[in-house]
């Protein structure tokens, strides 16, 4: 349904020196810098998939989405969406897609929501019957009735986001692009939005491309994950396989009686001997060890610690997407890839 092949997007930015002198200088010579916002990415998306597209700020997620929706023209490479080249056939492409940018609304600020929908009906040329049915469905699904008569500018962020989502789906598009649709929302609204996305996907086979910083969005919705870092896609696969790709990490938490500095040292040395990248930290009486289980066995750690002191309690946890994301956002997972 969507093919992206060796796509790159460069932005040229002009650096300005600060101050008056810089401004004057800027009139004559400008320092050019080329940013590869997206660097030679390729993937295919099939009908009905829900892609969780994640990456740190500035990684290139929005740029990718803007190219797929036809807003931006790729610097090189090819994109086809249902057989169309989006930036060359913007109008045709727009008929089949819905887009929500969490950061800014596409609704008309001064118009009551209801009127907004009637305008969109005309713009997308939705027949009367289909429109009625669809509007009923969306109003119900997203719980919009209560504020449908209010001007968009008076809506809360959560209401506005639901309204934006409804507006994007009014013409029954096959593909839904969501760029940070849950940003800044409270848990209840997030739940509603997730439920709606799921429902649209299950009932209408809508293909969804979703960027988010909220890993529970990904856990609950995504059928496939793509991770982008500095413009390069570094992971594309299932939620389950992600652990294999980024080191089979686990975390062991031990509650210890009389945790001492020496013990901490000894455990640390012991762990590092087998897994150089293991991390041993402590908080009060809790010792937290993150390690790769291909190199270091749980039993070894437990055995060692128990021979030295009394363990009151312990917890073992698999690394989840949240942990991976944390490492990702903290500044790169790339070099850790095995």
């Amino acid at each position, binding site marked *: 349904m969507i093919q992206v092949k060796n796509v790159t997007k460069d932005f040229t930015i002009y650096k300005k020196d600060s101050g008056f002198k810089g401004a004057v200088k800027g009139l004559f010579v400008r320092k050019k810098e080329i940013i590869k916002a997206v660097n030679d990415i390729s993937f295919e998306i099939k009908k009905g998939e829900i892609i969780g597209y994640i990456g740190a700020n500035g990684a290139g997620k929005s740029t990718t989405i803007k190219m797929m929706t036809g807003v*931006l023209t790729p610097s090189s490479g090819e994109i086809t969406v249902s057989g169309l080249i989006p930036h060359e056939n913007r109008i045709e492409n*727009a008929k089949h897609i819905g887009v929500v940018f969490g950061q800014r609304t596409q609704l008309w600020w*001064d118009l009551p929501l209801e009127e907004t929908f009637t305008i969109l009906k*005309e*713009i*997308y040329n939705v027949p009367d019957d289909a429109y009625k049915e669809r509007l009923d469905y969306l109003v119900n699904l997203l719980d919009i009735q209560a504020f449908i008569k209010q001007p968009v500018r008076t809506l809360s962020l959560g209401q506005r986001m639901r309204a934006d989502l409804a507006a994007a789906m009014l013409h029954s598009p096959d593909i839904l692009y969501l760029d940070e649709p849950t940003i800044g929302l409270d848990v209840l609204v997030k739940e509603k939005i997730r439920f709606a996305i799921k429902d649209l996907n299950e009932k209408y086979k809508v293909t969804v491309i979703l960027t988010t910083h909220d890993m529970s969005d990904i856990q609950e919705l995504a059928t496939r994950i793509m991770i982008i870092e500095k413009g390069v896609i570094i992971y594309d696969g299932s939620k389950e396989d992600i652990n294999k790709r980024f080191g089979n990490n686990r975390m062991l938490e031990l509650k210890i009686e009389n945790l001492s500095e020496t013990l901490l040292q000894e455990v640390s040395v012991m762990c590092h001997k087998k897994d150089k990248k293991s991390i041993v930290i402590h908080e009060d009486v809790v010792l937290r060890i993150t390690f790769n289980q291909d190199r270091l066995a749980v039993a070894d750690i437990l055995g060692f610690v128990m021979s030295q002191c009394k363990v009151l309690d312990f917890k073992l946890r698999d690394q989840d997407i949240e942990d991976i994301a944390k490492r990702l956002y903290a500044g790169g997972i790339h070099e850790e890839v095995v």
Partner: protein
Amino acid sequence: MRYLRIYKIFLKQYLKTLMEYRSDFLIGMLSFFIVQSSNLIFLTLIFKRIPNLNGWTFEEVLFIYGFSQIPRGLDHLFTDNLWLLANEYVRSGSFDKYLLRPINPLFHLIAERFQPDAFGEMIVGLSIFGYAYHLLNLSFTGIQWLLLIIAVLSGSLIYTSIKLAAGSIALWTKRSQHVLFIIYQLSDFASYPLTIFSTFVRMILLIVVPFAFVAFVPASVFLDKPYIPLGILTGAIVAFVMWFISYNFIWKRGLQVYESTGN
């Protein structure tokens, strides 16, 4: 047809919101009438001293001035959103949405805003035009009225094309408010007889930003003092050429290079 329907809906919605912001509207009208009357007072004062301006009488100058406000108002009425394109839509990234809807993005942009302040220009223009028509004892034939309509439409199209060209520069530079403003200021020259300006200014108004064809050239035809032969036809051709260039080579090219904004 569908586009007409969409336009009607936008217009209806716009008028509704206008009611909410009535005071804005009134202030807009008021400031407009102040500007217009100061222009007129200025004209009258000049003509008190020099009854003949480079071969143009007071009545004729009034005729040109009044005429010039009509296409100006017509363009202003419909395409005011080009100012916002130049000023903020690109910079803020809100321009994205026009590229995400299945209608012509320029139509979408323009249909979204309707500027009733422009009625002021048109009313003033028509009144002065009518007054001068009367003073000059003109009596147009049917054909002349028809030509007049063509001239007004061509004039509006010239305005729109120039605004579109200057506004589209924002698609490259993020903001072109200042360019648009300066160029738009030039149109003030178009309300007066071209012959009173230096050759340099004249050349600019005829060739570079052809505001001369908005009012002066056609008005000179109706006043029987044609500045160039076939003034109306030439004006219409200029309008179409300007539109063609602005739409295809500036606006459309601009859409291809449009970069949206990072967050």
